[in-house]
């Protein structure tokens, strides 16, 4: 791989590491597996010898595939994609939602709904970009998103936080 392509990959990783990690953990439910999936995808890119033109969707798609493989192998979700600190669980200085509760509610959604919410809210994907990534129709993605948010809202409103 040329030095320029390597630099492109490095810049992409540095700029997107948080998003890639959040997305991978949201699928694997395991931080270690998520990191392995990310590392593995970049190794694969280096082996390809060139940086793909559509780098962002390519990397997200590859990480999705790797993360799903990890999930199929382990079948256990132990880690949260949110930062769970002692401070975040205290009532006064805590954010509006408790991370562990949101994590638990997100897990009750379907994988499609959860993934769409993560990509839209935390990775700033548009519906069209998600539709391209998942190779489904735009309206399907919009439907997953709205249904997922509605379910999440109902769950969050039902349980006192």
């Amino acid at each position, binding site marked *: 791989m040329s030095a320029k392509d390597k630099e492109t990959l490095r810049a992409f990783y540095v700029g997107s*590491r948080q998003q890639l990690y*959040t997305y991978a953990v949201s699928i694997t439910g395991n931080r270690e597996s998520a990191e392995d999936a990310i590392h593995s995808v970049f190794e694969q890119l*280096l*082996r390809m*010898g060139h940086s793909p033109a559509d780098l962002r969707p390519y990397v997200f798609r590859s990480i999705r595939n790797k993360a799903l493989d990890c999930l199929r192998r382990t079948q256990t979700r132990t880690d949260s994609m*949110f930062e769970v600190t002692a401070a975040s669980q205290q009532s006064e200085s805590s954010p509006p939602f408790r991370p562990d509760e*949101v994590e638990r509610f997100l897990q009750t959604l379907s994988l499609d709904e959860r993934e769409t919410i993560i990509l839209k809210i*935390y990775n700033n994907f548009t519906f069209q970009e998600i539709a391209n990534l998942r190779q489904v129709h735009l309206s399907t993605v919009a439907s997953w998103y709205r249904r997922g948010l509605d379910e999440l809202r109902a769950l969050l409103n039902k349980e006192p936080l």
Partner: protein
Amino acid sequence: MNDLEQKLRNMSLASPSADLDRRMNDTLESEGAAPEPPFRLGQRWRFLVLAASGVAAMFILVQFVARHRQQQPTVYRIEATGRLRQLLLEPPSSGDSHAPFTVSGSTPRS
């Protein structure tokens, strides 16, 4: 963006570990450890295929030439002298007086 989306967006996310950053750095830094680019592997494969095709073509050509040589009739020229020459140049007019002249036998070995 509605209130729920905004609240979700404001939540603190877990960050990748320093170990991942180190691994990624090592991977993106490494020059020699990286496997050969596919195009070089492709070139090598093309060269091997070409060489194998050349050897196969040469083998077929040699076989063809050898077989072609075997199929060509071998012509022996024998200089006849004496009685045989006379018989050949001036065959008898009547077939009854002499038996038909035939030559048979195996080819001489050199």
